[in-house]
């Protein structure tokens, strides 16, 4: 019984981890500009994330070491430092974006501009980490985040033509606006395959004291949780295709996504979007902040745990105590959260190899995983999707920002 509950909670958590400002904005952009044609990157990104999350859980359950600790053990300090710098820079931008997402939701419901919300949001985020335990953060934010199921309901109510939806799962080349098309592909992949999820999830497995008996549960949670998350993203894309695309609306703000929700869900669409996204972004912000703190603590061999009092994990807590106010600065300056989001998602795709290649090496190490090393399929799938994301990112980011 306890395990069933754990599986259920785990799945809910994964949904919470999947859906955030990045995946919603990029999915809405994709639907509004290219319709169902861009469903395939959501499917590929989700598939890749399923594998990565399953691997992170398995690594921790078997070796009792996190991804970060194992990486420093195996590749040494210089390599760890490189990964640390890249991941902190990119995750910092993603954190700004998530805090911006919460602030935008508050702006939409109150009318008070998002820069005003930067400090209150930072304070709440910090207090939750400072006073909350790992399970409070994991389960609380994700249960509330279930409001985002509204995306699936909304898509369903619009009665999409399911055969055209299905055809979007097959990658095709765009008939026009190729640069924009590939840039959105990269953003979607970056939004789905978030490396911070690996660090967060593998540290969570240690915090929850997983052992080898969790390998099966872990597999179920990863597969179902991420699939649901991916389906909700697809829901956003479908709604955008049916509501925004016919009107010629290009998504460049979060407000347009909120507006679009009021068409399939007239009565509660707006409130569900604002509430659900505020919680989802808060959940993601918590996960990213913890992931960055774990990156420092585990790589440098400090004592760490989100469950202990700040007093006994001083350095670990100091990392997020310093990080959160800094992440509030761009918002205070009034930099558009959606702009930060788009940039950070594309950059995530560009740094994926630095996070994933060493991880894959670890996942094939018999010293660490004994009989539970990766199989041929998981290695191949992850390598292919990662290389594709990286190649597309390297080509399309310069095109997007500096013209052809």
């Amino acid at each position, binding site marked *: 019984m306890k395990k069933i509950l754990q599986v259920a909670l785990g799945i809910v958590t994964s949904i919470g981890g999947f859906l955030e400002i990045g995946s919603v904005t990029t999915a809405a*952009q994709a639907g509004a500009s290219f319709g169902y044609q861009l469903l395939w990157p959501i499917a590929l990104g989700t598939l890749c994330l399923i594998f990565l999350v399953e691997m992170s859980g398995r690594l921790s359950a078997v070796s009792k070491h996190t991804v970060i600790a194992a990486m420093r053990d195996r590749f040494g300090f210089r390599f760890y430092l490189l990964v640390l710098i890249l991941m902190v820079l990119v995750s910092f931008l993603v954190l700004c974006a998530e805090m911006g997402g919460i602030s935008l939701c508050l*702006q*939409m*419901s*109150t*009318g008070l501009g998002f820069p005003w919300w930067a400090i209150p949001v930072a304070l709440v985020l910090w207090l939750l980490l400072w006073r909350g335990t790992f399970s409070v953060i994991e389960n609380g934010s994700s249960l509330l985040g279930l409001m985002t199921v509204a995306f699936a309901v909304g898509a369903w109510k619009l009665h999409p033509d399911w055969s055209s939806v299905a055809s979007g799962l097959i990658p095709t080349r765009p008939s*026009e606006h190729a640069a*924009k098309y590939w*840039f959105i592909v990269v953003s979607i992949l970056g939004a789905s395959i978030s490396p911070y999820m690996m660090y967060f999830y593998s540290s969570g497995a240690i915090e929850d004291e997983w052992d080898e008996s969790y390998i099966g549960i872990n597999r179920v949670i990863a597969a179902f949780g991420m699939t649901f998350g991916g389906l909700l993203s697809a829901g956003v894309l479908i709604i955008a295709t049916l509501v925004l695309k016919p*009107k*010629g*609306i*290009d998504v*460049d*703000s979060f*407000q*347009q996504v*909120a*507006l*679009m929700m*009021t*068409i399939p869900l*007239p*009565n509660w*669409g*707006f409130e569900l979007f604002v509430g659900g996204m505020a919680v989802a972004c808060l959940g993601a912000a918590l996960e990213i902040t913890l992931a960055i703190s774990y990156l420092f603590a585990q790589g440098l061999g400090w004592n760490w745990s989100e469950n202990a009092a700040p007093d006994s994990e001083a350095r670990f807590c100091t990392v997020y105590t310093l990080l959160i106010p800094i992440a509030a600065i761009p918002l205070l300056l009034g930099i558009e959260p959606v*702009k930060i989001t*788009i940039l950070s998602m594309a950059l995530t795709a560009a740094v994926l190899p630095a996070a994933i290649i060493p991880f894959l090496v670890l996942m094939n190490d018999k010293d660490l995983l004994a009989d539970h090393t990766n199989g041929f399929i998981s290695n191949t799938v992850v390598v292919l999707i990662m290389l594709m994301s990286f190649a597309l990112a390297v080509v399309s980011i310069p095109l*997007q*920002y*500096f*013209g052809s």
Partner: protein
Amino acid sequence: MIVTSCGKKPDPADTLSSVASELATASLAGRVWVKHRTPNSFTGNTLRDSRMNIAEQQNILFTEAVPPVDTAQLRASLDHAKDMLATMEKMIARQDIKSFPAALAFFEQDAKKVQDMSDSLEKKQQ
């Protein structure tokens, strides 16, 4: 238009279509507000953002990226649309839901003209 910065030369067709997108957003926001689906402040802010974005794009449209359309007509439509947006914002502020639909209808006429120009330009370019 994901990013229009970093010294990228604006494309007339893209700029026009992004103006049309702003107009469409405002019209959707107006329609939904009449049906009481969104809060006043949100709708007011959305219309104001649209109006300001249009003004910004308009500058580019008539200097750096002049589209091969009837610019006099375009300018008139955009000016008129902006005026209507300002009027609608005031109506929302005083919750004047009765006269709003008429104003919205006026606004949408101009929005449609711009949309048509953008569409025909897109077709021509293909």
